[in-house]
């Protein structure tokens, strides 16, 4: 695993500026946010791949930082090289880097390999022009949180205990590279002043499933878990409850892709196993893009910061 800096290809202006300024004036003033690329050798794909590490404002001035591992959704897969920028499209990294919010976390944002998904229409038809940019001045408008929403009236959807997938979640998911994800966390703790007691895990859609799975396998590594529009499996519950890992799960009541009725079983199972810090928030008016509201707000980040191992 070799680490090296590269200038971020699509936003060379902003990234280059930040890099230059920090090197020169790191001691003199509060350091600017930075987006780094870290390379590693992926055992699963037998290739070199990159992931992003976001360093928050003032990174150089503080000894220890909370860490957030963010797992993106299905549409942002790629080769971890030329396609890595797709992971900037949504989630906390989008908020920090594109929306320029000073979120006080070191954010790890890896990319899930394409595996068999290259022919899915929204992946096949995507273009780099869709990738949001960090602008020199100002910030772009967020995507509409009401996207991918069914037109049905709001009402509770009941509970469905028969889940379509096993505990690993849908096929070709993040479970395929779980070892690599944990290695990224370890490396970030070492190389980027990460606080091992404050490692938070979140993800959206496919990344929500991945977050549940990873938390169940490495429950004691994390200080809090926040899966968004991805549900867990009841089999995840014992390990998460035993580790007393706080959970805040989010769902859109009108999500036609990942439906609300599947979210309840694992939550109830957690409580059955004695977990007391278990939250499930249902934005009944929203669909799959519920993450826009969740990551666009502040409550989730504040909740993370209240929890440490």
């Amino acid at each position, binding site marked *: 695993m070799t680490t090296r800096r590269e200038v971020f290809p699509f936003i060379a202006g902003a990234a280059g500026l930040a890099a230059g300024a920090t090197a020169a004036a790191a001691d003199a003033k*509060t350091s600017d946010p930075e987006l780094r690329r870290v390379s590693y050798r992926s055992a699963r794909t037998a290739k070199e791949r990159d992931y992003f590490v976001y360093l*928050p*404002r*003032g990174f150089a*001035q*503080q000894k220890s930082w909370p860490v957030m591992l963010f797992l993106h959704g299905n549409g942002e897969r790629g080769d971890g090289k030329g396609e890595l920028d797709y992971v900037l499209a949504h989630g906390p990294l989008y908020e920090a880097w594109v929306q320029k919010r*000073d979120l*006080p976390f070191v954010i790890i944002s890896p990319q899930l390999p394409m595996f068999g998904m290259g022919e899915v229409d929204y992946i096949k038809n995507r273009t780099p022009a869709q990738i949001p940019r960090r602008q020199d001045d100002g910030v772009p408008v967020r995507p509409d949180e*009401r996207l991918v929403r069914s037109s049905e*009236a*709001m*009402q*509770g*959807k*009941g*509970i469905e205990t028969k889940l379509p997938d096993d505990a690993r979640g849908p096929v070709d998911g993040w479970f395929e590279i779980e070892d690599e994800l944990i290695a990224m966390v370890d490396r970030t703790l070492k190389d980027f002043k990460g606080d091992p007691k404050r490692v938070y895990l979140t993800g959206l859609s496919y990344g929500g499933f991945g977050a549940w799975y990873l938390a169940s396998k490495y429950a004691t590594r994390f200080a809090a878990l926040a899966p968004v529009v991805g549900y867990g499996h009841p089999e995840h519950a014992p390990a998460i409850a035993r580790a007393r890992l706080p959970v805040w799960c989010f769902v859109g*009541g009108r999500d036609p892709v990942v439906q*609300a*009725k599947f979210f*309840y079983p694992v*939550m*109830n199972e957690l*409580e059955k196993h004695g977990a*007391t810090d*278990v*939250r*499930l*928030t*249902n*934005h*009944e*008016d929203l669909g799959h893009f519920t993450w826009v509201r969740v990551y666009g*707000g*502040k*409550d989730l980040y*504040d909740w993370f*910061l*209240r929890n440490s191992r």
Partner: protein
Amino acid sequence: MTTRREVLPLLAGAVGAVSVGCTSTQPSPTEPELRRVSYTSQHTGTELDYFVYLPRGHATRASWPVILYLHGDGDRGDGKADLDFVLCHGPIYEAWIQRRDLPFVMIAPQLPLFGLGEAPFFKNRTRNSIPQRAATPPERPDENTAQLKQPMQGAPLPEPFKFGADEDRQGWQSLETELVSMIDQTIAEFRGDPRRVHITGLSRGGFGAWHFAARHADKVAAVAPVVGFGHPDLADPIAKAKLPVWQFAGGRDPSVPLRQMYPLLNRLESLGHDQVRFTVHEDLGHFAWIRVYGGQDVYDWMLAHTKA
């Protein structure tokens, strides 16, 4: 009221890092204040008081957003000696007791007992339950205290309503004209911005917020009812004014069932209103308001709305 240590404890590191260097050069803003304002209630024919909270730096800005906060059943009282009970919950609790610098002028009136004084939660309450503003804020009550024995599950739609939109006679609707006067007076005397008057309330106050918003949609910039539903017949004026709505509920609330929330919200949407939010904290019961008001998002949402 002398403490300047108002930085949110959880963000102390980050906030400190960002604000270092600029704090010392600015003149110190005015401290938050809690005022009592007296008025004569038409409904009761007696003099009552309400609280007006003035945020930090009130004197240094010409115009402020306003929150009208309507409490729940348990905090009723005589508007005089009992008034402190309205500090027990809600945004006024967050600002005054938890010492958060919420940038609003807040109006917090008290609903008279209206004959409910024999209910156990009045008979058994004591002034000891009123939280005190202290140098170090107390811990918030447990949002999970209600008996949440049932599993989490999506609730179905309810049966049609068996009562009308104006039948909460022991509720806030009886003080409607008084509330209007409070808003007007706050705009006139406390630099309230007439285009940024927001209304929120919890439980009985949630019903009240809906009712008031429907009757005075022209006065309100956003409405956030918490664990209190509105009657579907209130939809028309709210939809017509496209008044932004954020309804909150606890999925396991045994007092105000979640399923009662859907009819009005769906009616609003069917009338073409596209700024309707509905957030259910499925894990919580009636005390869902602790999470809602204890967070930041509901306030940021209010601040994003100004009446045209």
